[in-house]
């Protein structure tokens, strides 16, 4: 019985991890329609940022790394958008191949810079221990996810930039004719989306491996959350991440890890049969 109860906070924390890795994608994939296969590598870049900052901040590197990783991954995203992706807007398949290639290159770059083996990121001593069944580092990730969601919500709904971003997402042509520089909005969206991946990477150093292939372990889950939640929908992503986290938690508890993956995929496929648009649908009058 205790085991079953424990699965509830575990499910929430799995959901928080899913949410963190998917948040950035709700921007780049959800709003701009860019299938960015290199998103996982931006997560990896965030994790390695925490690793490098250990020289300066020692065990508190994880904290210091949060803003730095946001900038590092954000800049990487910006460079990718400026040099390559913007030439491929409206060509999703080409973008997919392009970003997949970029992800392979970035993995190899990481392997050459940091070596093939995983590196060690020490977690802060104040994150050791647990509150009941919930380890402090999981709690930290949960709070980080909540914090990120709130920050994004405020940005999107309360700032002029965020509202312009929404305008472009809802109707690109109309936004452009209203005088919004859509190219600049795209840059900003991509910067923020990639930066969020960096933050996720920092958080993942607390619970997972830090190596060149880190991104590949999370990229599929990230896309699942965005697709199930509905493209570009913040609340969709939140609900989908938590639902998938809980589903994962209980499916694995009652069966096993391999079967739980099958169950989660099966549920998502079935769900998309009924709601191909995901949980929430963007209402728009754009002619797409």
């Amino acid at each position, binding site marked *: 019985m205790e085991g079953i109860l424990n699965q509830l906070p*575990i499910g929430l924390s799995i959901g928080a991890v899913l949410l963190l890795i998917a948040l950035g994608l709700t921007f780049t994939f959800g709003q701009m329609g860019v299938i960015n296969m290199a998103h996982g590598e931006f997560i990896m870049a965030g994790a390695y940022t925490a690793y490098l900052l250990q020289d300066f901040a020692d065990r508190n590197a994880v904290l210091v790394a949060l803003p730095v990783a946001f900038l590092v991954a954000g800049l990487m995203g910006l460079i990718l958008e400026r040099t390559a992706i913007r030439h491929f807007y409206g060509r999703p398949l080409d973008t997919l191949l392009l970003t997949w290639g970029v992800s392979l290159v970035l993995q190899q770059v990481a392997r050459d810079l940091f070596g*093939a083996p995983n590196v060690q990121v020490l977690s802060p001593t104040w994150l050791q221990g647990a509150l009941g069944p919930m380890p402090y580092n999981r709690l930290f990730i949960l709070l980080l996810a909540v914090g990120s969601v709130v920050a994004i919500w405020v940005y999107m709904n309360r700032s002029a930039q965020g509202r312009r971003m929404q305008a472009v997402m809802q109707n690109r042509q109309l936004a452009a004719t209203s005088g919004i520089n859509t190219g600049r909005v795209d840059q900003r969206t991509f910067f923020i989306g990639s930066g969020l991946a960096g933050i996720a990477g920092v958080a993942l150093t607390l619970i997972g491996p830090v190596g060149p292939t880190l991104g590949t372990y999370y990229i599929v889950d990230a896309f699942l959350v965005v697709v199930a939640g509905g493209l570009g929908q913040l609340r969709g992503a939140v609900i989908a991440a938590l639902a998938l986290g809980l589903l994962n938690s209980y499916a694995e508890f009652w069966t096993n890890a391999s079967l739980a993956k099958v169950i989660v995929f099966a549920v998502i496929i079935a769900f998309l049969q009924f709601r191909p648009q995901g949980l929430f649908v963007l209402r728009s009058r754009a002619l797409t």
Partner: protein
Amino acid sequence: MRNAFLRTAVGAGLVLALAACGGEPTESTTGGGAAAGGDTIKVGLLHSLSGTMAISEVTVRDAELLAIEEINAAGGVLGKKLEPVVEDGASDWPTFAEKANKLISQDKVATVFGGWTSASRKAMLPVFERHKALLWYPVQYEGLESSPYIFYTGATTNQQIIPGLDYLKEQGKTKIFLVGSDYVFPRTANKIIKAYAAANGMTILGEEYTPLGHTEYSTLTNKVVQAKPDAVFNTLNGDSNVAFFKQLKSAGVTAESMPVLSVSVAEEEVTGIGVDNIVGHPVAWNYYQTTENAANTKFVAAFKAKYGAAKVTSDPMEAGYNAVYLWAEAVKKAGTTEVEAVKKASGGIALERPEGLVTIDGETQHMYKTARIGIIQPDGLIKEVWNSGEPIKPDPYLKSYPWAGSLAS
């Protein structure tokens, strides 16, 4: 428009250039195809240099290159220098088979050193048997195999897993939980462990598998903690170990309360897991960087000199390093690189290696090896706490263990 196209082309070129420098000096050291009669002997090295297994296999290749370099510095084999042809198995089992085929048919190598996962070995096995070519496989594995064209320089089950169980039993740990990656090695290993447990009064409280590359272990940890075992027998492979130990530690499990005995975690992996998260847990191998003998002092010093002082040496690396020397010794004894002659000459070859005396068992083509149980120390190295006293005769089919009768079918 022309401008945009130009920039795209430049961008693509840049990506390609990056990919090219990313490739390391690994592939195609060869010039033409068939240079078998020259003044070098080609040998193939086939490991995953990319993908999820690269974390482990790259260092085995490094150790094999070191052995080749040392042998060449000492005059080579049969008066000829060894020329390594390195290929990338890319953590993809069909690729291993394909590259093995290429090394044998196109590069005409005298032998191949390669593989890590059992899946990659099983994929390559038919290729080597079809071409009657030799593979030296350097990693501990699940046993129950003895191909006439493979030499197994890592431990088979009676040289690692069974000594590990003997150790747990000696420590009074009789209630065991099994955790492993979902593929052939852990599943076969656990079959053996369950048979051992049934015959030795041990109870198996649970058995859980996770896909390779799995990183979410909170549910599994919860299951293990609820079952309250005395110890966990861990056959996870690759990056999953990092996630598992990190999440086990944050769930409050310590080496004192519930030791986790691992058979795929060596010095290399300890750094990535974080010493903090795994200190005090036992591991079972045949070699540690701290193993004391003259051959090991020399090996550790040479490895650090070539690859950097911060590098550690581990069991699979040592087994790969040994493989090159054992093959070279068999070639010298046979007087030729011809496969059947080398096989015939190999039986009984005994060399003092970093792990101690290693003897080739001609019948099974496995090695006599000393089993060693170690505890992970705060400095990240492993201290031996128990060994089998003498090299154990390899018994891949466990014929000498009455309780294992049903397994070897």
